[in-house]
């Protein structure tokens, strides 16, 4: 069953469909919210918020807006950042993280799920100049303000957007349509 079919069933209050979506996304979503929170308890809380939202129908997915996966991760990211701001208002990327950009996580053997997607994005990232990789990570995983991104990269505030735009354009070129939404390819 596709994500969208499962989602439609969840909208009809089908518990098994929600469980199936949960099983499908548990590992990658958990990894993602862990990346954002760096805190296991907070990550679990975020996961719960995400699935409560799905179950209650808060934030409705609209097929014309793009891929379900993008919507799910965007919604999860939103929920998680909200939670971080609430629970740990002081949690910010410190500049030390910005200096030491971790290389893409090595894919461990047990991590067979989503292997194709992982490889694809890692490869696409590796193609980017280091400063673009940095801005992508600061943007998506650290959720920094534009000013902090500028500070971390040592570039003028006005340059941040341009650099992000460039990085996204490069990434899109290397990613299959499965990982990004077609309509942004225009």
């Amino acid at each position: 069953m596709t994500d969208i079919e499962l989602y439609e069933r969840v909208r009809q209050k089908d518990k098994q469909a929600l469980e199936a979506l949960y099983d499908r996304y548990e590992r990658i979503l958990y990894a993602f919210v862990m990346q954002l929170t760096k805190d296991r308890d907070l990550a679990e809380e975020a996961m719960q918020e995400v699935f409560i939202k799905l179950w209650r129908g808060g934030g409705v997915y609209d097929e014309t807006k793009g891929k379900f996966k993008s919507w799910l991760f965007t919604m999860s990211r939103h929920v998680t950042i909200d939670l971080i701001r609430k629970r740990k208002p002081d949690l910010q990327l410190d500049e030390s993280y910005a200096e030491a950009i971790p290389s893409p996580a090595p894919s461990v053997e047990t991590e067979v799920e989503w292997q194709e997607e992982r490889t694809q994005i890692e490869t696409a990232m590796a193609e980017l100049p280091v400063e673009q990789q940095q801005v992508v990570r600061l943007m998506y995983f650290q959720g920094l303000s534009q000013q902090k991104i500028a500070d971390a990269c040592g570039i003028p505030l006005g340059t941040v957007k341009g650099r992000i735009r460039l990085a996204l354009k490069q990434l899109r070129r290397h990613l299959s349509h499965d990982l990004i939404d077609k309509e942004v390819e225009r």
Partner: protein
Amino acid sequence: MNACDQLIDYFNQHLTEDERIQFEAHLATCQTCQEELEQLEALVGGVAFLSEPAEPPSGMKARILDNVFAEDEPKPKKVEPTPITPFTATKKNQKTPWGALALAATLMLSLIGNGYLLLNQDDPSGIALTETVPLEGESEGVAYLAEQDGQRQLIVQTNGLAPLEANEVYQVWLLKDGSPIPTGAFVTDDKGNGTVIYPLDSTESETDWDTVAVTKEPERGNTAPVGEIVLSASL
């Protein structure tokens, strides 16, 4: 900074509530921002796969799904009261020292509905209401005389009572000819909801009492009312 320059801070949720509302108004009319936002969002589903693998804690699935589905369990507070035939009330409508005003029928129905849910869902063990009396005063409230396994009870429920100070309590009294006995105290939640269930002496009959009243007391344990009456009704 022009409005378009706030896109990243909007995406990363750094705007204040006012700024966010303003930016969303801008977004609705700015095609460039709409497209850029779409592009930012479209890639979340891709970059998410850059996350370092992390092992989900054991038991997380069960905990989360239990909690998610528990959201659906009916809770008396959230369920809309179902209008039901009112229980027979042996109300005498006599004037009390505090005066009695008739409450709107809709309010009574709604409160009886709440009581019905409380009594029937939280306590399925065969409790029978013998009298239901809406309370009059500063907020909504209702008093029930009930019987369970031969034990008679006075139940008082309130909704929308004013918040209490540190040691204050709401105290329920039964009165006959103006002399009160304390029949339980309670504190309210943030909506002014409170409930007290007080077992009555089985030898006493409801005709022993002519009034039920709720006062706000400066402390627990007063044997006679000190504070003002906030709710009352004749029995």
